[in-house]
């Protein structure tokens, strides 16, 4: 067991080395990744002085916020409507669809709409819809255990004691579901924020998000400290979501 423990910690270390190296290099006062030139914040300054990057991060944040809000709310409703165990396999199936899959079919649908109805949804609206379509099953799966956690008896008690349906929802169900709501919101936010493929197929050239900007460098194999800084900033929602998720699981798991 001792050897296994060392092995496990070695793996943990290996998993965080690439991310760690990138974050460290974003503070490196040298353009070359293998030369340490001292600590600096100038790449972050360069990033903040770069209008396109600002716009991209802002676009990503707005889309991710909208998607997280809509997805959590709809996921909650879906969880209520589909409380039966039978349906869960369907939504779980949709969660693990590979990255390309329906994004391209979605693009095909948008393109049809553009050709025949003259409605051009490529751009922010399309990205919002595509992200919603793939985060909803995720939100649903995350919410449904918590929804079944709200026992029938609690709701019945509130109704018998004279609370209206709306009142029951606001003062009984909502407080119980609040932690799940926060966890789902953050996880969907993180997922929407750093998704590249779903965005790439749907977006228009003038709507650039942070992952699209990152891809322009990554796909050409270009190392640039300013981009390391961008990538480090993009890590923040992911890490926050991970921490919140494990805290939520710990409390209810």
């Amino acid at each position: 067991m001792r050897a296994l423990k060392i092995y496990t910690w070695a793996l943990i270390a290996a998993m965080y080395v690439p991310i760690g190296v990138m974050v460290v290099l974003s503070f490196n006062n040298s353009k070359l990744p293998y030369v340490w030139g001292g600590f600096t914040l100038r790449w972050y300054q360069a990033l903040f002085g770069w209008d396109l990057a600002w716009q991209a991060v802002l676009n990503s944040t707005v889309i991710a916020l909208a998607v997280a809000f809509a997805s959590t709310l709809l996921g909650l409703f879906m969880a209520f409507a589909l409380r039966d165990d039978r349906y869960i396999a369907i939504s779980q199936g949709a969660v693990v669809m590979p990255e390309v899959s329906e994004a391209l079919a979605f693009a095909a649908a948008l393109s049809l709409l553009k050709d025949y109805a003259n409605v051009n949804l490529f751009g922010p609206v399309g990205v919002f819809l595509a992200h919603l379509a793939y985060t909803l099953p995720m939100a649903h799966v995350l919410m449904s255990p918590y929804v079944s956690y709200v026992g029938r008896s609690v709701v019945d008690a509130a109704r018998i004691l004279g609370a209206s349906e709306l009142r029951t929802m606001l003062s009984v169900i909502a407080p119980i579901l609040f932690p799940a709501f926060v966890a789902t919101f953050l996880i969907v936010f993180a997922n929407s924020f750093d998704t590249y493929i779903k965005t790439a197929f749907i977006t228009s050239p003038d709507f650039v998000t942070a992952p699209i900007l990152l891809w322009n460098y990554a796909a050409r194999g270009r190392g640039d400290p300013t981009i390391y800084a961008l990538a480090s900033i993009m890590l923040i929602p992911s890490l926050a979501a991970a921490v919140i998720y494990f805290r939520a699981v710990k409390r209810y798991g």
Partner: protein
Amino acid sequence: MIKKVALVAFAAVVLLFYAPFLALGYYMSGGGVLKLPSTSMLATTFMLALVTAAIAIALAYPAAYYLAKRGNELEFALLIAPLWVGTLLKAYSLLVVFSVVERFTGIVLWGTALGVVVGMVYEYFPYAVLTLYAAIEKLSETPTQAARVLGASRAQTFLRVELPLTMPGVVAAFILIFLFAMGEVIMPAVLGAWKVYTVGSYIWDLYFKARDFLSGSVLSLLLAALSLLATYVVVKTIRSFSI
């Protein structure tokens, strides 16, 4: 009221999911030739996915075993947390590491199949840990103790009792990772520098270069159908442990 809102929300979801399929029907009836990927490309993708799944499971099994038996919450959380980091971020950070490795050891990883495998193992490793952990944790102590009492050594107990009993979990993890890896786009593109050409890259090019919606959508939906099937298998295998 809650029910009505929920049903409206659900209808919206169904529409979001099925509109793409309606579009596909239109392209199918409109004709057009389906451009299938070449055999060598399929072989590359298949081999990459196979190797990735095998390595990820081999690496993850001992860690999952330790986690299920003695691990604490922190170790579990640390191993699983990278799931939340986006693929593109992982690919880009590996790109940086590759350039450092190349400089100091002379080993070229960028643009090679090995580099792509490293990237994909890095990406799918947490999935392997999760699936195997679920299988090993459900393992009952009784057969293990029986084997030990009857005189089997530690290694024998593991090889002939524990490993066969967790085999369904290994199979589930394998199918899951294999099918994820089959549809992978980002790792071959970023770490393979478009030199390692997979079905994912092909679908990508069909859309961005050839603007061929029909072939692209059909191929991508085929991949999606495959992974739905895989998910079904995985969910079923994991469920069977809980009884």
